[in-house]
């Protein structure tokens, strides 16, 4: 019988991230479908609070690695904790969220355990009692269903694919797992986290709307001149009022490196598409985008899509957007900002 181990790191406040709670749902459903036992493995400075929060998930056992050394995101200590938790639980299938921290550490853990890994899984089901994963290939342009006979099998689950576990907290009997921290494991030290101030943050993974700015914002307008400063004001104004998350096409981001006038708040972190992110939001509004297939990739997981641009035959919008408004995005966004107050 399979033993499915849900793995998570605690956040700075001792809680579990929403992405981890979603991965717990995936692990729980898989365990139910496979008739497997479910275990929970947590690591961080102190896992007691996180264990209590998921005490009602139906797991038969809880394991924890608690120490200040495991509070920070560092490959060597994270991998050591995960390896120890997997061995303590005797896990055959390991399920975790694809947070930056887990995505970095779990593949190495799979290698240490002599197992295999499939990352960024978007679906996880039991078919005839066998676990089957779904994930994208070639930047989500192809989707595959797969399974493996090799064990342990590690899986990281993409955010937004499962409902977050929301059971009532309770008391969990956590088996403490000891992991010695050697000098070799602390050659790396976390210095700081650089994050924009809350009112300046334009990447908002939990936003209901993704607003994508295309290269058209910096092109010459009807009067023959570009209006980049105004474009910046309109975009930031809308983001401030709507609390949408900002994405950008590659061409617009690349302009910065090519010495052209750019929107100063855009970085490669905003980029969606082939070499950017494939964010998940219920709605997406694209403006001044004239993307081809690579651009569409960035919108793979956007629910409802609308676009504003001047080309009714736009290759991105036709067949990809639900609604295409053929209009001047400057005028439309100016009016929207005015109406939003």
């Amino acid at each position: 019988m399979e033993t499915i181990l849900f793995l998570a790191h605690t956040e700075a406040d001792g809680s579990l991230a929403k992405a981890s709670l979603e991965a717990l749902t995936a692990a729980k459903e898989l365990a139910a479908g496979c008739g497997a036992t479910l275990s929970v493995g947590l690591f961080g400075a102190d896992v007691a609070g996180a264990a209590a929060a998921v005490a009602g998930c139906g797991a038969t056992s809880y394991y924890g690695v608690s120490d200040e050394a495991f509070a920070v995101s560092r490959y060597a200590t994270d991998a050591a904790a995960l390896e120890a938790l997997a061995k303590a639980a005797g896990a055959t299938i390991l399920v975790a969220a694809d947070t930056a921290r887990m995505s970095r550490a779990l593949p190495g853990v799979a290698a240490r355990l002599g197992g295999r890994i499939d990352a960024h899984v978007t679906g996880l089901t039991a078919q005839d009692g066998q676990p089957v994963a779904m994930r994208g290939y070639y930047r989500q342009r192809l989707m595959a269903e797969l399974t493996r006979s090799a064990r342990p099998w590690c899986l990281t689950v993409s955010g937004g694919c499962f409902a977050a576990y929301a059971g009532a907290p309770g008391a969990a009997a956590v088996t403490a797992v000891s992991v010695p921290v050697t000098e070799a494991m602390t050659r790396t030290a976390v210095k700081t986290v650089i994050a924009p101030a809350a009112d300046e943050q334009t990447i908002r993974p939990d936003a209901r709307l993704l607003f994508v700015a295309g290269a058209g914002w910096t092109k010459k307008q009807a009067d023959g001149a570009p209006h980049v400063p105004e474009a910046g004001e309109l975009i930031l104004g809308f983001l401030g009022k709507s609390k949408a998350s900002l994405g950008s096409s590659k061409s617009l981001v690349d302009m910065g490196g090519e010495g052209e006038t750019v929107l100063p708040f855009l970085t490669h972190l905003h980029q969606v598409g082939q070499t950017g992110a494939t964010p998940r939001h219920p709605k997406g509004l694209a403006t001044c985008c004239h993307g081809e297939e690579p651009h569409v990739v960035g919108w793979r997981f956007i629910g409802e899509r609308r676009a504003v641009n001047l080309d009714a035959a736009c290759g991105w919008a036709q067949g990809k957007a639900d609604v295409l408004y053929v209009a001047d995005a400057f005028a439309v966004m100016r009016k929207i900002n005015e109406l939003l107050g």
Partner: protein
Amino acid sequence: MFHIVVCGGIVPDPLQTLEPVKGPAGWGLKNELMLPSILDPWASHALYEAAHLAKSAAGSKVWLVSLGPKAKLQQVMMTVAQKAPFELVVADGPAGGFVDCSEVAEALFTAIEGIAGLDKSKLLVFGGWQSASRGAGATLQILGEKLGIVDQFQGVDKLTVGADGSLEIMERIEGGAYLVSTCTGAPAVLGWATGELPEPPNNPQVGMANMRLIMPALQKAKPAKPDLAAIDYRGVSLPTQKRETRIVKDTPVDVIAQEIIDWIAS
């Protein structure tokens, strides 16, 4: 000084239409060998960063280690070789995305182990943090484990080397933030995101110098035979994305703006 090994595969040009097919060797792409290929985009960034670092750290050297069919690699190298100085190491095998990342890591490990004069105490393993084919973001970590390297970083956009050889690394984390870490020095594994450098212009002189070593490297490439049955694919398909697009034109801006606001609020 560093010995920098950049791991990078080849992928179909992103503008190509892809269609999955199942052949005798398992799943692949229709006309895969006919599709124009490029060096994986994120691995390309890793190569540019490696070349930049090697230029600034005297005595450093860059190797590009790639698993792929020799003939395709030769085509891709005609362009890549003009971008930055490096020595090519080839594992002659499949480059497709459906090959298991552990199998790819094993092939890369074997190729790296065969590099003469590689000093592992000075080793920096670079690569893209994900490929544009498999997209697992797992191969480098597995390779790092095989090489015994436990200082690993993914989604790297900036590396600063101190006078004492220490490293300061900026990694992408959730919500548009960066995690800044320091490491006492090599060896380390760095999976690059886009980095900070633009694509270098083609330099024919660099290309000529590289090609003198690339051709022999291709000729003496050792075959790599990853287990293509490591993953049991139940099926591969194209996602259905076709939508019925409603075109709204010749409509006053006020009406469009209000409709968008109503939609956002709904």
